[in-house]
């Protein structure tokens, strides 16, 4: 590392820059650099290889799924055609999209409202109440899981998609915390000015505060979208009829039937895994900047 250091200080040394010749950093290959890049590339291989393996296996016929070859010996598209017949994949995808969009949108709007209530207004007991919000984050889901099921059961909503998203109408502690942080960062004078101009509280919230905190709203949408799309436990608890399954729940069912359920059609399981995962990969590439920023801020503020 010391060589790297010397390199840096050399480059930073005050050379009077002549206008025509740009200052060029000398690139020297040092043992430290070799080590770092070997580590980075090795790690990348480890992280990416399972994807390559999975995608490759999904193009192999039944007998070759486990041959660990990167390029399929017999390339086949059949799995992608069969999986729709073997299982109501399209229906599952539709269910998942429906639940995920509803959950993400409702939790974003409701959490933003609540966060704004805590960030903008001053009232007696505010900190105490916000403390309760934070405290609910500490509660393990297992404690409320059973009574929540009983509530939905008594409403006759078990085996519908409603329990998977409807609780998001009431905000979620983590996002309330996240969004409140963003709202608190906005200059208060802005809202005071709007108030003098005659804007009411709702207008100030929807026209000024929400647009200004768009990055945080996008983070909330993306996080929740991912959380709901990938969730297995709630679908396991609430969904019975396979026509109501979300893709993760369906994938588990496929594994149980075709994986170790004796029928041994792993190529179906592998292909369905790819179909379940790809939307999340796309989501990441669409919102990469926001994902990274969101995770970095929750880490530093949490």
């Amino acid at each position, binding site marked *: *590392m*010391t060589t790297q*250091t010397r390199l840096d200080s050399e480059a930073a040394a005050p050379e009077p820059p002549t206008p025509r010749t740009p200052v060029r950093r000398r690139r020297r290959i040092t043992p430290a650099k070799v080590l*770092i890049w070997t*580590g980075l590339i090795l790690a*990348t291989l*480890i*992280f*990416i290889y*399972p994807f390559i393996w*999975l995608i490759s*296996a999904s193009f192999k016929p039944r007998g070759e799924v*486990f*041959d*660990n070859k990167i390029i399929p010996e017999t390339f086949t598209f059949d799995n992608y055609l069969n999986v729709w017949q073997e299982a109501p994949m399209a229906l599952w995808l539709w269910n998942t999209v429906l639940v995920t969009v509803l959950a993400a949108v409702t939790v974003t709007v409701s959490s933003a409202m*609540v966060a704004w*209530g805590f960030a*903008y207004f*001053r*009232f*007696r*007991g505010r900190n105490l109440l916000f403390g*309760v919000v934070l405290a609910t984050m*500490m509660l*393990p*889901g*297992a*404690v*409320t*899981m*059973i*009574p929540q*099921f*009983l*509530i939905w059961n008594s409403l006759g909503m078990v085996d519908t998609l409603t329990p998977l998203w409807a609780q998001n*109408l*009431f905000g979620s502690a983590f996002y*309330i915390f996240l969004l409140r942080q963003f709202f608190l960062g906005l200059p208060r004078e802005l809202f005071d000015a709007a108030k003098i101009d005659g804007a009411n*509280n709702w207008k100030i919230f929807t026209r000024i505060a929400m647009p200004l905190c768009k990055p945080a709203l996008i983070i909330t949408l993306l996080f929740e979208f991912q959380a709901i799309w990938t969730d*297995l*436990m709630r679908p396991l*608890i609430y969904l019975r009829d396979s026509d109501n399954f979300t893709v993760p729940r369906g*994938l588990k069912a496929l*594994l149980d039937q075709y*994986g*170790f*359920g004796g029928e041994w059609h*792993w190529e179906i399981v*592998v292909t369905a*895994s790819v179909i*379940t*995962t790809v939307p999340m*990969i796309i989501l*990441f590439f669409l919102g990469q900047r926001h994902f990274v920023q969101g*995770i*970095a801020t*929750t*880490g*530093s503020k*949490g």
Partner: protein
Amino acid sequence: MASTQVNAPGTLGDDRAARARRISRRRETRSALLFISPWIIGFLVFTAWPIIYSAYLSLTDYDVINNPNYVGLENYEELFRDPDVALALWNTFFFTIIQVPVYVIVSLALALLLDKAGRASGFFRTAFFLPKMTPPVAVGILLLLLFNGQSGLINEALSWFGIDGPAWTTDPDWVKPGLIIMSLWSVGSSVIILLAALRNVPQELYDSARVDGANWWQQTRKITVPMISGALFFIFIVNTIAGFQTFTEAYTAFFGSGNTTYSNDAALFYVIYLFRQAFEFLNMGYASAMAWLLFVIIMIFTAIQIKVSRRFVYYEGEQR
């Protein structure tokens, strides 16, 4: 958060001003409550009531079909007699106590590497993070496939080095190590958190350390780790809590209606056992008692960690 109100006694004008203030404050409180009301309703219905009801259920026998039957502390006594609870607790502790430190060290190592990647760090960051986007069900399936004892990729890779890999998915001794290794695949978000923390360490600290002749290892130990101890602690505590509640990957790979081939005692984690008691065997009362035991365990561990962290964690600009 009540703003201190100075009640100046005396003139009528002061009185009127005070009244106006009071009214505007009452109005502000009302608006605030309006905005907060979704959370209040949700809290009462989906958190507060469930807490109370769960505490009550834990004192009953309840199978959803018949009315809850009060049995006193019997469920809690049963917790200590049930060998599967002991097994599940052992599995969960074993998993958490090994997984969390390894996970933190691996994320730190990767963050340090990424910090040195210069302009390519964006590419590597994406590569490290993608596994985190994979649905845990798919991770569980990947575990079964990659760690398969006969034909899995892991054992094939090991065989290049002349190592005869174990039967990760069927040998009870190797199930948890396999799950721990697989869980490291999703360190991506922790790496991003640590990388952000690394970038906030003031460069002057390293500059002056270099002047004093500190090498890379000394700089890392004496500057980097203390300066990002807040982020490290955050990852540590979040992962501990998550570790105690580990469910999806293990459930996918080792439980469910189709599992006839694998022995799954080694993967019976606490929340999996709780889930089965509640929703497969419909012992809602017993499962509620299990949930409260989990709550107490998590609280104890979190309290210990916070206490210990006071000695090691440095928060910038904070006086202790």
